[in-house]
């Protein structure tokens, strides 16, 4: 991990949506930063606000009913939320690029993949058509596509899912971004192909030196890719730690519950034969509890948890947790 220079700084981000049934606070005061060359994992289940956070950074919330985001997003010293649309367009796809879960729906079906990559290059860099086409082929080669010159003339439907995901990565990296936002980039892929794509992302990160914001629900993928991890629940950060700390000594009962409920291939599993579970469901975004959003599902909950939202506290060494009971939990684990 290269520590030091902050590349992206998200400060008290709030994204609320107006709906017929009321205001949905999808992201409700989220703060984190990513250093140069670092991979920050953001993990959460549906409704946690992890994807909305990434769309807010890219300024892609559009007209989906989102109210103007609150807080600040600073990228390399620039204030992204305060930028004009033309200024933001120069950054998006250039210094900040994004890859998604579904490569098929994010590639244009009527253009060859080579042309789509060349288009991004020409939009952001003063290259003529020939040079841009050459760059497209180089990028396809970089992401490990065999016969890149021939493949550049293929349409997306002529490629497999894994190949399309490589094309999307090639397109995202064509302008050598400083930050890559990867939102569930391997979730739709088969495991043997997922392993290849994760390898590729790690190798390209070393080569290009970019930072990655890696969003996923998969704790296995997080363990493999992230330097630091932010755990989100119901629109807020509930824990933040280095990847080793988070997996070895999680402090938030939600994180502990998540880690316990994942079935694993590498261990024998619980002797009872039953998986441990978190009871109940993720709270409805319109009716979140007054206090800690996890309280209704939490085995450690006490009165204060119902009444008052805990603050995100630094427990030492940058390990942050939003829980009234973390001190008791540490003592219990130690004793």
């Amino acid at each position, binding site marked *: 991990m290269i520590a030091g220079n902050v590349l992206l700084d998200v400060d008290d981000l709030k994204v609320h949506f107006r709906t017929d049934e009321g205001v949905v606070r999808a992201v409700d005061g989220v703060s984190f930063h990513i250093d140069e060359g670092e991979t920050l994992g953001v993990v959460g289940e549906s409704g946690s606000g992890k994807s909305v956070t990434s769309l807010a950074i890219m300024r892609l919330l559009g007209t989906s009913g989102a109210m103007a985001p609150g807080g600040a997003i600073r990228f390399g010293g620039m204030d992204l939320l305060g930028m004009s649309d033309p200024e933001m367009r120069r950054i998006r796809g250039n210094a900040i690029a994004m890859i998604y879960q579904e490569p098929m729906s994010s590639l244009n079906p009527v253009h060859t993949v080579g042309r789509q990559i060349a288009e991004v290059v020409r939009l952001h860099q003063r290259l003529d058509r020939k040079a841009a086409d050459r760059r497209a082929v180089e990028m396809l080669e970089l992401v490990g596509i065999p016969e890149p010159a021939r493949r550049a003339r293929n349409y997306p439907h002529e490629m497999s899912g894994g190949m399309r995901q490589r094309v999307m990565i090639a397109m995202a990296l064509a302008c050598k971004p400083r930050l890559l936002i990867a939102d569930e980039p391997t979730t739709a892929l088969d*495991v*043997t192909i997922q392993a290849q794509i994760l390898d590729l992302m790690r190798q390209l990160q070393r080569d290009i030196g970019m930072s990655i914001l890696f969003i996923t629900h998969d704790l296995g993928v*997080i*363990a*493999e890719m992230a330097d630091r991890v932010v755990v989100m629940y119901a629109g807020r950060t509930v824990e933040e730690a280095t990847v080793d700390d988070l997996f070895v000594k999680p402090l938030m009962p939600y994180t502990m519950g998540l880690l316990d409920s994942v079935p694993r291939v590498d261990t024998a599993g619980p002797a009872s034969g039953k998986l441990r579970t978190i009871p109940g469901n993720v709270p409805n975004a319109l009716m979140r509890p007054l206090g800690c959003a996890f309280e209704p599902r939490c085995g450690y909950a006490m009165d204060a948890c119902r009444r008052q939202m805990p603050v995100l506290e630094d427990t030492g060494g940058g390990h942050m947790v939003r829980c009234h009971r973390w001190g008791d939990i540490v003592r219990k684990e130690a004793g």
Partner: protein
Amino acid sequence: MIHVDPATAETRAPTMGKPLLDIRNLRRYFPLQRGVPPGRAIGVKAVDDVSFTIGTGEVVGLVGESGSGKTTVGRTILRLKQPTSGEIFFDGVDLVPLETAAMRPYRKQMQIIFQDPYGSLNPRMNVGRIIGEALGTHGLAPGSARADRIGELLLAVGLRPEHMRRYPHEFSGGQRQRIGIARALAVEPRFIVGDEPVSALDVSVQAQIVNLLDDLRSRLSLTMLFIAHDLAVVKHISDRVIVMYLGRIMEIAPVDALYSSPRHPYTEALLASVPVPDPRARRNRAPLQGDIPSPMNPPSGCVFRTRCPIATDECAKVVPPLEQVAPGHFKACIRR
């Protein structure tokens, strides 16, 4: 090494009773040209010569990646798709030649739970009607007994009887999957195919549903074929596991043997590809290179050979037979 044809050999775990299902040489080809009847089609070999048994009360996991044919196997066994050839013995009776009317009593004994709990529940029906319809089709719990039976089923899957008046959209994903399970259980089936029943659910909810299925299985002595791409989930619920690749079975083994000592290079690679939730166990390199070949044009001989780290020229020539390497443990590989 003993050569055994699993179509006739005992491929079930020795502890299990006599097989409830006995699948022999099942093939399902999809025509590439329209209008060719499935019986004589030459096209995609979605399932190619697959044989296995499922013992009464046994849960068999069926894993594989895209194009493996695992979903087609499940649907063909239920006769939701007609096999191109092969036999499907259910409790000693071959279902393949049965006409609609003769098939009906078996339909009641075999149910399916789908992946997408939302897409498989009619949004215009309340939960009572959704479950009641299954009961009505098979003439079960008529009249005033019906509401009681629906309430009972909802309780069995961890919901409440008063939920029968609500509509699917009022439930979370996990609750909807519970409704799908209640509907499948309504007709008191003996055999259930779970087709990726937990893959659309959040991690914390997925574990609840896995535990529920495990409970129901022992409480109602259900026999189950659990189809999934997630090897960890399959490990948790299965007694035995079948690994498929491009329409063929690569390995069959009791669950512990499969995960602790896999005998097929594909199974090994599959297990090594799963990211483990432990940063100290990071992989250095993807175990398999290359793409899964198109099922329209599968490799000759062993279908896995194009990605196999130990393949030789010989592998292109012969389709490896399933050979028994230990009691109940079969692998289709001439190199191991």
